[in-house]
């Protein structure tokens, strides 16, 4: 069965606002998580990752938060831009397999 899942299938955000995409996982032994962005007609593209010994990691305009107590992680995108419109997946990486959730489609309104 699916080990990771997202709360909302779609998110509409005003350009310039911050976006928050949520994801829940069920395997308490999971120790490595990745967020991917998939634009139409393309393969998933790595955004940011986090290991279970951390609760926060920041990249360029993106922040991932991990709450192991409730098995939840989130991706925050600062100052959302039109180019951020895409489907976002959280994935749990075991030894080598990625287990993806169903994805959240983010639409940026001008």
């Amino acid at each position, binding site marked *: 069965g699916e080990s990771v899942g997202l709360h909302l299938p779609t998110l509409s955000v005003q350009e310039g606002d911050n976006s928050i995409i949520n994801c829940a996982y069920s395997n308490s032994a999971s120790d490595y998580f990745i967020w991917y962005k998939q634009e139409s007609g393309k393969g998933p593209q790595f955004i940011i990752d986090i290991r279970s010994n951390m609760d926060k990691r920041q990249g360029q305009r993106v922040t991932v938060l991990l709450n192991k107590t409730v098995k939840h992680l989130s991706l925050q995108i600062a100052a959302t831009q039109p180019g951020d419109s895409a489907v976002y997946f959280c994935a749990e990486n075991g030894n080598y*397999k990625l287990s993806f959730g169903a994805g959240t489609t983010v639409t940026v309104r001008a």
Partner: protein
Amino acid sequence: GAGVSQSPRYKVAKRGQDVALRCDPISGHVSLFWYQQALGQGPEFLTYFQNEAQLDKSGLPSDRFFAERPEGSVSTLKIQRTQQEDSAVYLCASSPPGQGKVREKLFFGSGTQLSVL
């Protein structure tokens, strides 16, 4: 090339036909993966190669699916006697040599969209 290359980009097959999907990984990448992505879903693992060795094929849906990577570079995913439920995007990904577990981020190709009529 700079990234993972997959061909063909689109494939339309009649039910019962055999198809072959090609993946050219990034040069020097040891690990290669195939994923299947149904419409509106996240990718699902199919199989994993390390060099020419197929280390895990547990995700292949049936014995109609076969993958190979004979020289440890290019890989082919073959589907025999295609069925409508095989319609999906087939993604290939590769990753460079790492230490111990394959935990590096994967580089995905743009996929082959297979439509079985």
